[in-house]
């Protein structure tokens, strides 16, 4: 059974982890700005769908990525307006986004393509070496996000807003504008991750194809203690679990359902402070 380990497993790990990395970084931008983001799943799903729609009608998968960005950002903007402007409960709004994304994608699949379940197939992104291009994007994103958050004035402002928006306001930060920007950015990134699933890994949209990955990304964000590098390693760990589970199927009698539980159980354990404490931004949800 040892031949399941090795280079293919490492490649599969990064491949599984990539959408989680991109989405988790998006999630932490929103949460660093003080806006709870349990709607990552919905934004990812909408991104996956819009990527296929645009790729289908233009024939160009690169434009499809922009479709994904648009889909994710559009939902995020609704979340932002409802929860920032109209001060709705952010968890409620996020729940509604997830329900909306599910309904909208199934509905539009019928309207645009007249099918239910799976969309017609479209041109997928070209493979760059062993990966689709968005895998590299995810890795670059980690570096950029890390440098941005910790080494730029805007990053400092972002962190300040998440910890104490009133204090940030008094020193001249436009808190509302900053929140809008980062919530929308988080949707755009989740949308890219969705595109990575639909036109990066596959060349179709399938109903509910994100299959909880948005929530695993949320878990990775928490497990990584709201830092880009932490999110990277958490996503790699969860990606490894997924890749290993696929490769071990039929070889080792561990039910795959138990491997699927790993990200969620780990997150609960770390949140409870049994293995190091994960502390959210102080002004989250306020």
């Amino acid at each position, binding site marked *: 059974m040892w031949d399941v380990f090795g280079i293919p497993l490492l490649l599969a790990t990064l491949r599984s982890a990539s959408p989680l990395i991109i989405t988790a970084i998006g999630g932490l931008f929103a949460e660093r700005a003080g806006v709870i983001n349990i709607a990552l799943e919905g934004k990812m799903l909408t991104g996956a769908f819009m990527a296929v729609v645009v790729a289908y009608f233009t024939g160009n998968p690169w434009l499809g990525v922009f479709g994904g960005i648009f889909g994710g950002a559009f939902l995020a903007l609704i979340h932002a307006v*409802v929860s920032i402007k109209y001060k709705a409960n952010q968890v409620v709004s996020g729940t509604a986004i*997830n*329900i909306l994304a599910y309904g*909208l994608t199934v509905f539009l699949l019928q309207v645009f393509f007249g099918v239910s379940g799976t969309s017609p197939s479209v041109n997928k992104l070209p493979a760059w070496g062993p990966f689709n291009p968005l895998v590299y994007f995810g890795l670059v994103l980690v570096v950029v996000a890390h440098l941005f958050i910790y080494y730029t004035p805007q990053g400092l402002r972002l962190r300040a807003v998440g910890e104490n928006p009133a204090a940030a306001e008094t020193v001249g930060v436009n808190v509302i504008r900053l929140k809008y920007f980062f919530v929308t950015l988080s949707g755009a990134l989740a949308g890219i991750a969705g595109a990575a699933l639909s036109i990066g890994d596959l060349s179709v949209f399938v109903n509910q194809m994100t299959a909880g990955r948005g929530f695993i990304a949320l*878990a990775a964000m928490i497990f990584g203690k709201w830092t880009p590098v932490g999110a990277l390693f958490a996503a790699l760990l969860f990606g490894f679990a997924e890749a290993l589970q696929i490769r071990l199927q039929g070889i080792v009698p561990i039910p795959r359902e138990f491997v699927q539980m790993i990200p969620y159980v780990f997150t609960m354990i770390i*949140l*409870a402070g049994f293995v190091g404490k994960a502390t959210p931004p102080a002004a989250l949800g306020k």
Partner: protein
Amino acid sequence: MDKKNILNALRLKELVLPLGAIFLGLLVGGIVILWIGKNPFTAYASLFYGAFGDLNRFANTIARATPLILTGLAVAFAFRCGLFNIGVEGQLLIGALSAAFVGTTLSGLPAIIHLPLTILSAMVASAIWAAIPGILKAKRGVHEVINTIMMNFIAYAFVAFIITGPLKAPGQIPKSADILGSAQLIRLSEIAQWSTSRLNTGIFIALLACVAIYYLLWKTTLGYEIRAVGLNPYAAEYGGISVNRNIILAMVISGVLAGLAGAERVLGFHGSFILGFSPGYGFEGIAVALLGKNHPAGVILAAILFGSLSSGGRWMAFNTGVPTDIVTILQAVIIFFVAAEQIVAWFFRNKKKTGQVA
């Protein structure tokens, strides 16, 4: 404004905002239907007929609403204690699993013992599942939202493992064996010739639960304490109420209600545990609780509304070609409007220029 007028205005607001949210939701849905080139009035009329057109359809609507009454009540009860229980879906599945286990294995018992025992097992299993995030919140200060989300996914995986493995009935479909006769809830179709509805005696459990929760929240000390914690935990603590104890209790009771919903589906509506049977009753419960203003009576009405959307949707799709999933979109939009009630208030103020609606 004297005290009586203020009270009346408050009551009016309690009614106007949910109704306004439904109206705006239907309006947005109507625009979407128009956009795909269909007639929204025909579609909604068809939806309404599909849900309430005759006695059998009405029974189907109530059958669809039954679990929503319980999940809505579960979410609402936790809300009253200031907790957001997104985990009702997982708790429902765990309760359903427990009901399926006890309901298919303990043969030879009389129904008078077997049925209550099966329902009790669902209540206990869900209560334990819900207690975990409650305890983690009370003892370790972890936000219940994240933990209940995580536990939903753990429940999905666990249920999939059990139903495709140890509890699987022979055959292609991943489902448990049929519930033994002694643990079944009686369906309307079994006692009424005219009906094909799976509406079952579980509806009485749901309504009874509403009465019990109303009594508990507003007529007992425990209910007073739970509401006090929900309104202001610091003030409650200062007043000598144990916040931690009430958080755990509220989650446990919320879990019990979710477990009842799962039991009703397995023992009554389906008659077995079919993998993936829930279209998201737990999440719809969030919409139901919000629209019902976290009050048992409101929850019943909101559950019937959402139940009717789902049960009428198929008929609408069949007759007008509007995809059933418009119903899911409607649900989401209604939640947005209930959550951001300022939008509703703004809309009606601008329309009527009365300014007193909100």
